[in-house]
């Protein structure tokens, strides 16, 4: 990482924190790693939020790890459910680790030579919360069920 990348990353991180402060959001932060950890209570399951500034790729990334792992015997079929949820999604994706059964929602914005405004960070946060809260309980239900491929497709819609 060169000096320019570091300066851009720091400026982006500063705007991110200012945005979250203006939203009165409670969060933990690691200024050296340029990471922010927060969370909220959704309609059912909690929604974890982790913002990080990827200085090398010049990306701001929001991850939201779902609070369950897919059991070993459901790992392949669960890929169908995650694919179905991702298909046609306007932004972001649920990333599914077939090997461990972990699912994380990810939404990114690129700040390369750009100036990202507070509105973009607010959007990323509210969008991630909305999508994760919408699908987390459905994915958990599918993970712990014995639904077939066809039943999963119908359940996700």
């Amino acid at each position, binding site marked *: 990482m060169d000096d320019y990348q570091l300066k851009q990353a720091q400026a982006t991180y500063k705007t991110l924190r200012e945005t979250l402060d203006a939203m009165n959001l409670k969060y933990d932060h690691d200024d050296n790693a340029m990471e922010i950890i927060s969370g909220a209570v959704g309609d059912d399951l909690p929604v974890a939020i982790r913002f990080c500034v990827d200085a090398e790729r010049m990306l701001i990334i929001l991850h939201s790890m779902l609070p369950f792992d897919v059991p070993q015997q459901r790992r392949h079929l669960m890929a169908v459910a995650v*694919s179905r949820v991702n298909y046609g999604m306007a*932004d*972001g994706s649920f990333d599914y680790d077939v090997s461990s059964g972990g699912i994380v929602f990810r939404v990114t914005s690129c700040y390369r030579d750009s100036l990202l405004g507070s509105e973009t960070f607010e959007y990323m946060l509210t969008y991630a919360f909305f999508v994760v809260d919408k699908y987390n309980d459905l994915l958990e239900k599918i993970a712990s069920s014995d639904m077939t491929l066809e039943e999963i497709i119908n359940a996700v819609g």
Partner: protein
Amino acid sequence: MSNQADFKSAERIYNQLCAVLDSYDWKYVSNEQEKTVSFVMTGEDVPMNFTACVDAERQLIRLLSPLPFKFAENKRLEGAVVTSAANFAIADGCFQYDVTDGETIFVITTSYRGSLISDETIRYLIACSVAVVDEFNDKFLMVAKGVMSMEEFVEKY
């Protein structure tokens, strides 16, 4: 539809997108009404089609690349597993896989809401898409044709 300011922002981004493609001297088909541009790239193996569009409503730049083959009915589960594994391995963008018809589309987005987006960011979206699609399209094709198993793919990534 979005308001006048959103429409003007979308128009500015669309013109910027066309200017970036002009700077490469690339041939492309544009649709000003829909705010889309389409172009073709030749990768190491499988040809790659791209459509960039400006989503005025959501204030997103979106670049889509549909893969030129589908997973056959008896390979649909494999398609879901390998596209999921690929999504978990990449930092930005995602493969959206339609398990009902076997189609796969790579999608990468960035928000321009309240932001100043540089030409460099647009170049990054294109370069990242080309690199990711070129990396995975031939492996997906091998799985679709039964030359590579989904387990081999998952192990590789």
